[in-house]
């Protein structure tokens, strides 16, 4: 055998021997310091989505499973898994879970290209960065800036910025985790339940004249919707119409009457 071969074999033997010794020591230690974990935790981890997105408010799926079993975290706490996972956890822990209605993020602004820009923004493509420049480039300081902070916050690719420079939600991909909503610096995104059909797509509290100057679809607080609603579900406060979803029947009269086309049925 040449010296090179012996050399290689020797070094392999030393490293291998070291690895073996260390491995044996670790096996021994893991036996000695074994922590008794609740088997229920392991079972719950297997049915969780495993996305580790953190939308439940805990460090990850494993942490959530641990808290559910040991610290009374809500069984329905995983927004990504939705009802199916909640039912699964309930089955393991022997509790009944009733299904809550699906809800999706809703963009409370229809501005986009309908809203004028005050200046041309050149810089980092992020809503928070745009916000730092005197409340954004848009004429309206309330609306969506369309720079896609919510899109990047979404771990499931459910949001896209469309042609109109507004985010669009793909409901097939959306898991209602709410990460986009918490990422939005202007509070334009909110949760809306599926049964809530009629929405005001504006959040501007500016006076009608100011809104009209910058945006063709903003709420001008004219109160026409408030007067025409047969259910008295709409109130205009501070130059903005707000719909009481409990009273709304979805008749669509306000949608027809609104001179600015701000209210829409989805």
């Amino acid at each position: 055998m040449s010296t090179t071969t012996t050399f290689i074999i020797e070094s392999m033997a030393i490293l291998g021997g070291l690895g073996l010794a260390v491995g044996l020591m670790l096996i021994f230690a893991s036996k000695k310091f074994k922590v008794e974990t609740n088997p229920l935790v392991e079972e719950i981890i297997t049915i969780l989505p495993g996305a580790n997105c953190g939308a439940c408010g805990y460090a990850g799926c494993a942490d959530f499973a641990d808290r559910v079993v040991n610290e009374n975290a809500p069984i329905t706490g995983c927004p990504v898994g939705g009802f199916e996972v909640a039912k699964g956890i309930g089955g393991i822990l022997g509790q009944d879970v009733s299904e809550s209605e699906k809800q999706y993020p809703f963009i409370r602004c229809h501005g986009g290209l309908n809203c004028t820009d005050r200046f041309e923004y050149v810089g980092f493509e992020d809503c928070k960065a745009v916000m730092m420049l005197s409340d954004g480039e848009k004429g309206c300081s309330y609306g969506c800036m369309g720079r896609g902070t919510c899109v990047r916050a979404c771990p499931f690719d459910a949001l896209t910025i469309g042609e109109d420079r507004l985010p669009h939600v793909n409901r097939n991909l959306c898991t209602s985790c709410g990460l986009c909503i918490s990422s939005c610096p202007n509070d334009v995104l909110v949760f809306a339940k599926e049964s809530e059909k009629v929405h005001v797509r504006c959040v501007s509290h500016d006076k009608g004249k100011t809104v009209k100057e910058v945006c063709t679809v903003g709420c001008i607080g004219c109160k026409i919707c408030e007067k025409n609603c047969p259910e008295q579900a709409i109130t205009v406060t501070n130059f903005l119409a707000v719909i009481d979803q409990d009273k709304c029947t979805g008749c669509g009269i306000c949608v027809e009457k609104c001179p600015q086309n701000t209210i829409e049925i989805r």
Partner: protein
Amino acid sequence: MVEKALLAIFLEGVFIKNFLIIQFLGLCSFVGVTKDVKSAAGMSGAVIFVMAMAATASYLLYTYILVPTGMTFLDLISFIVVIAALVQLVEFVVRKNIPSLYRSLGIYLPLITTNCAVLGVVLLNVQSEYNFMQSVVFGIAAGVGYTIVMLMMASIRERSTFVSIPSSIRGLPQAFLIATMLSLAFVNYFWVIPI
């Protein structure tokens, strides 16, 4: 090489060659775990233990296995194996005995494995040709230096959360500024103990 006194090695390890803010080793835990004093102290305890153990184990490994067989080129890889095993051991022990600390350290406990400060201690020991006692003392000193800086940083950061500062430097930028000033303070030790 002139034999250095153990006290000199100790002081040098703690202050003049401080691993965090003079040599810039192990910075991820320095920034990551210094949000509150309690977890910084826990992390420091774990690091002292791992550093002392790593210095001991690697000295024995280097002197009695690698040098006689002429395999000193294997030092880096075998030290990594030893350190990883030690960290795993510490993780077992902490998880068993102090679960609350285990939870607050989170990802940073396994990160000691890849903490360059630990590997730095071991490699510096080999480089400076320290004997057994010197290696162990240097290992402990490095851990103590780490602890001092971690505790200082954590206390400053804990208090500075109540200070009103511009939102653009709140958080990590603020931490880096604090680290800079701490580092400048420690640089002055070069003149205090000339070695």
